[in-house]
């Protein structure tokens, strides 16, 4: 098996064994927690900054612009400069805001993102938690973020924030359903909820190919619903700039605003990573049934490159949506969910069940 050279299982195992030998089990576990936490924190910070930069460059290209060009070569350091600026800004709180909830909200939002990111398999062995109910866990924790958004809007003592938060609440609660159902479609196909097993199941062909029609429908539905879940355009009603100024985070400044901002991009990453894992094979290289030599060449590309390549592809599609379409109205967003996506999803799940039962797949 060629991709074993890229397997991280031995590395993580060795660290674990080494720590267990030198420390008591309690200390060893604590150190492991800290290491994992720091690694994720660093990853989120760096990847978040990268995504902000990528978004600005991608949108610039769509708009026939150059985007940031001044800070660093090709503006590479722009987001770092922005981040430093946000860190240094004064934290302003509206006088009649609810002190506790106002300060709690950004943490809730970002914690939800942290929780969700922990089950994603980046590469073989590079996954901090491998539940057997991974998909279920992910859908559960990803909906915690909306509480933070609702709190932010409610506690800010601003009508725009409140409208934005209520919109966001209605939107995320609805689209949670479609995200879960389209994932369930694939769970029916994969026969497991464990992310590592789902990836392993795509060794011969990615689910979007082997599951053909129902998988493609589920992919499209997931993309749409996922975009809505991350509050990104064309579903960015919660912060609809031309209507609500900045929606639920109107009253936040400095680092608290940065947390919302970062959480948005981490959510974008999570949605894309889930799409990549469940539909596009996660870190699995592209394999075609009988083309042995082709498959071997593909195996030489490291799995995490496969993973991030797919994630970036999905992120690009979502950005493409955002920079092309006008925003929907709040009632239309609910119409889209309840009158279109939900029925399609339910029919699709049946279709997938039929496909699985009749074994009419590759």
């Amino acid at each position: 098996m060629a991709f074993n050279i890229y397997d991280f299982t031995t590395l993580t195992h060795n660290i674990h064994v080494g720590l267990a030998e030198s420390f008591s089990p309690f200390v060893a576990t604590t150190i492991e927690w800290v290491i994992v936490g720091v690694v994720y924190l660093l990853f989120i910070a760096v990847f978040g900054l990268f995504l902000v930069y990528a978004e600005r460059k991608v949108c610039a290209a769509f708009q026939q612009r150059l985007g940031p060009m001044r800070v660093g070569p090709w503006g590479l350091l722009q987001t770092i400069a922005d981040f430093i600026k946000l860190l240094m800004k004064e934290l302003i709180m509206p006088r009649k805001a609810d002190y506790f909830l106002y300060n709690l909200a950004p943490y809730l939002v970002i914690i939800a993102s942290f929780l969700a990111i922990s089950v994603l398999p980046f590469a073989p062995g590079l996954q901090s938690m491998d539940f057997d109910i991974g998909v279920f866990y992910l859908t559960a924790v990803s909906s915690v973020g909306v509480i933070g958004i609702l709190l932010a809007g409610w506690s800010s003592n601003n009508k725009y924030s409140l409208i934005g938060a209520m919109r966001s609440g209605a939107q995320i609660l609805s689209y949670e359903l479609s995200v879960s159902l389209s994932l369930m479609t694939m769970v029916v196909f994969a026969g497991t909820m464990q992310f590592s097993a789902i990836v392993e199941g795509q060794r011969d062909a990615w689910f979007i190919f082997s599951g053909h029609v129902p998988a493609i429908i589920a992919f499209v539905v997931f993309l749409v619903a996922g975009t809505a879940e991350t509050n990104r355009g064309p579903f960015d009603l919660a912060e609809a700039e031309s209507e609500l100024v900045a929606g639920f985070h109107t009253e936040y400044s400095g680092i608290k605003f940065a947390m919302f901002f970062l959480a948005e991009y981490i959510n974008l990453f999570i949605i894309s990573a889930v799409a990549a894992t469940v539909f596009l094979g996660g870190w699995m290289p592209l394999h075609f049934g009988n083309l042995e030599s082709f498959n071997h060449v593909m195996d030489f590309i490291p799995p995490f490159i496969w993973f991030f390549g797919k994630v970036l592809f999905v992120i690009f599609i979502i950005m493409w949506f955002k920079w092309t379409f006008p925003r929907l109205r709040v009632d239309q967003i609910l119409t889209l969910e309840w009158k279109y996506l939900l029925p399609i999803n339910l029919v699709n799940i049946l279709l997938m069940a039929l496909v699985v039962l009749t074994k009419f797949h590759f």
Partner: protein
Amino acid sequence: MKSFIEYIVSIFKGLWTLLTGMKVTAKYFFTPWKHLTHQYPENRDTLVMFERFRGEVIMPHSEKNEHLCTGCGICEINCPNGSIEIISKSILTPEGKKKRIIDQHIYHLGMCTFCNLCVKACPTGAIVMGQKFEHAVWDRAKLTKVLNQPGSVIAAGVKE
């Protein structure tokens, strides 16, 4: 059944319109070298304004430090904002006659709206519109300019 078909058709029609829109943006995304950005301070060397561009009022001087302004004050009358002030002085000509000439042609750039009326009204063509457009200064007092250079005289042969 009919409404069901309409429902399905509406989904595909809607998707199609979305895809046409995405095609337009994609076309520009994949031709990034056709960008429109002018990187302004860097392109100063190549940046040429149109010859008629109205950037500021200037008074051209020849190499001999001569200008064409007689100090008649028509520009001052024509200016809608009062951004031109003519201060004249009287001198004795070599023939011994008293003559009023321009002492200072004061131009308040901060009040100017670049309407071109002074230039159009000037009977001798002494003032023209310049192409300079970078007028930002640290001190507002610097926006008040004296257009005739120190020591300059009126060119010979300019009709009064």
